[in-house]
């Protein structure tokens, strides 16, 4: 079965510290993976996708097929990064399957 797991409900770091939000998936075939973000009082929105291999707001995510992971990383966290982050995989029908979400709290 296709599944996305985010093992951490809450990740709390200090401003300037590195951040890694974990995401593991199960999928047979070539997966398409994404990170969505929801800032306080804002809508859920796409942050980045693995195919583009781009850095958005300083965040990057590398698809590791061997470890079936797609962790989201940022070298220096900012207070404005505080938000809920969801990892998602696109299934064979084209729908997105979301993980449980991780709340990132960046303390001053």
């Amino acid at each position, binding site marked *: 079965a296709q599944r996305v797991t*985010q093992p951490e*409900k809450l990740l709390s770091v200090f401003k300037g510290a590195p951040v890694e939000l974990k995401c593991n998936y199960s999928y047979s075939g070539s997966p*398409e993976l*994404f990170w969505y973000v929801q800032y306080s009082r804002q*809508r*859920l*929105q*796409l942050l980045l*996708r693995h195919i583009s291999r781009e850095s958005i707001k300083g965040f990057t995510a590398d698809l590791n097929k061997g470890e079936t992971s797609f962790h989201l990383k940022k070298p220096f966290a900012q207070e404005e990064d505080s938000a809920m982050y*969801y990892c998602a995989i*696109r299934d064979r029908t*084209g*729908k*997105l*399957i*979301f*993980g*449980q*979400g991780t709340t990132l709290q960046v303390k001053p």
Partner: protein
Amino acid sequence: DVKVTQSSRYLVKRTGEKVFLECVQDMDHENMFWYRQDPGLGLRLIYFSYDVKMKEKGDIPEGYSVSREKKERFSLILESASTNQTSMYLCASSEISLRAYEQYFGPGTRLTVT
């Protein structure tokens, strides 16, 4: 700029009431979705629609139904609300093309069933 709107931000209903949640998008998207968002459970797909009058069940359709009479509007119906349907409900839309992975979300409706 894609706009997805939901009819209410907050809703309080009694057990057994019939509840309608409305969603409208203005980008002529073919796909529309209804999710529940619960702490620790993430987003779970209730129903989706890929065309007018077409619908498919998601992962948790029990207790819900949907209606899509017009392309821009997708309604979620709770036939007889129960307390375990207290949740945040998110509507989303997307294209049917290669960019279908990018879903555009509404602001959400927080439903409380008492």
